[in-house]
């Protein structure tokens, strides 16, 4: 099967600072949930910013369905079909839930189509539907994460990228998030996520990639990575015990 997203030997850093990514690789196949794990500061978020064009890369290449996307702006990359929820969620705090969803469909110019898609998404996320006119900034962490995820679905992207979607959420909500991700995958979308809690992340994913010091260490079926003694020792630590 052709790779949907391919990251090859990417080097990137902030401003004129040191390289944070030192030859990172990533292969994402269509229709899978892939989970990136690695210690704090490994460069997981940086890799996501590089893919989505928020951080320019210094060398290497990033391809979506064979096409280079590493010189495009974030808005152009979205149009190619990659949607991203960063670690800090990136909501518009002083806009209502509905307005946030409208912004999610900023690139959709057909007003009726946009309304239909917003209604679809609200139907799928009843929590948001109840709060459609509440300001995003006043919602709970879990609700905000739901909104951030829901918002990416308006444009029906090929890939949804989520940076630590479970951050600060109660275990029950975390399970809901993963259930939604599985639904997305089953409806044909591809999910790429970063997870701090490697066990939870890998258990819910199809494939895993381990990143450390800006390099890709291993990549493979999530189940194998969970069992891999090197990974257990290095990155799962107490959590796996």
């Amino acid at each position: 099967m052709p790779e949907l997203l391919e990251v090859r030997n990417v080097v990137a850093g902030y401003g004129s600072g040191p390289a944070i990514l030192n030859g990172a690789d990533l292969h994402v196949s269509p229709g899978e949930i892939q989970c990136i794990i690695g210690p704090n500061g490994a460069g997981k978020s940086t890799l996501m910013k590089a893919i989505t064009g928020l951080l320019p890369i210094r060398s290497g290449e990033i391809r979506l369905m064979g096409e280079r996307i590493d010189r495009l702006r974030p808005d152009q990359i979205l149009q190619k079909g990659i949607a991203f929820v960063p670690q800090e969620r990136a909501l518009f705090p002083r806009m209502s839930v509905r307005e946030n969803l409208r912004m999610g469909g900023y690139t959709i110019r057909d007003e009726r189509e946009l309304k239909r898609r917003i209604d679809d998404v609200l139907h799928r996320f009843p929590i948001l539907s109840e709060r459609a006119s509440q300001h995003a900034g006043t919602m709970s962490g879990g609700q905000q994460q739901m909104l951030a995820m829901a918002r990416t679905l308006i444009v029906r992207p090929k890939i949804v990228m989520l940076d630590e979607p479970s951050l600060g959420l109660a275990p029950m909500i975390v399970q809901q998030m993963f259930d939604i991700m599985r639904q997305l995958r089953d409806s044909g979308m591809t999910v790429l996520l970063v997870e701090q809690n490697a066990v939870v992340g890998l258990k819910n994913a199809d494939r895993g990639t381990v990143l450390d010091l800006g390099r890709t260490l291993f990549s493979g079926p999530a189940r194998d990575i969970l069992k891999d003694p090197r990974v257990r020792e290095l990155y799962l630590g107490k959590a796996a015990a």
Partner: protein
Amino acid sequence: MLASTLQVLILGLALGGVYALMASGLTLIFGVMRIVNLAHPIMIIAGAFVAYWLFRLYGLDPILAMPIAASVLFVIGVVLYKLVFEKEAASAKYSEMTVLLTFAVALCADGLLGALFSNTQRVTTPAYATDAFIFGTVFIPKGQAYAGAISLLVIGALLAFLNFSRFGTAIRATTQNRAAAQLMGVNVGRVSLITFGIGIALAGAAGALVSFLFSFFPAKHWEWIAILMSLVVLGGMGKLMGAILSAFLLSVIAAFVGTYFGSTWSTMTFFLALFVILLVRPQGLLGDRQEEA
């Protein structure tokens, strides 16, 4: 007594409208680009000069000259952004640099206008500038009444544009969270360019009103920097409604202070307000502490 209180209130509100118009462009620019535009007041003076010359040469009413002044200043804003700020936006020292850059722009524009037109006091004199509405004992100069009303109209149009148009929504989104706006498909570079143009155009529009409200000269812009800054800070840095409400609030207070303590104190109101805000409520009237850095 009651009549004079009413009169001071109305005049304060009318001038408040003009201040709100001046501050709106500044706030918009700060909101989207985090540029503290110290050159904003000199752009207002430039707008006043456009209206002045149209009045002198063609007898064009300064209120009718508003759209022309705004258009001229829009172009100046866009060119300025392209020349001075666009490359800088990528720099890590961006925010410190922009203060220096806008200060330099203010100096240059001040010098240029001074060299071209000299620092003599000027004013446009449409008929209404020396006329007044009189209701019993309440006396409202027509110039101020018109300027206030038209400022409100322009601000209303601006708010409608920001809240109901697609591009306006993109501007608001970029103000609230630049990276998020990019991730929603907004080309924030283009939004910045156009917003800078609109902000400077609003300064030009305000300038046309200033041309008959006050006598003006290039170096006068220094007086306005602190006034406008106090409005933007009190409004909560980059929050448009905050700046507009602050403009009315401070302008009314200044009008009463001016009436009871003399006009020197009227200007001092803004300076004092700036100090008090920074000490007591640095996030401004409508700002909230947690949000943004």
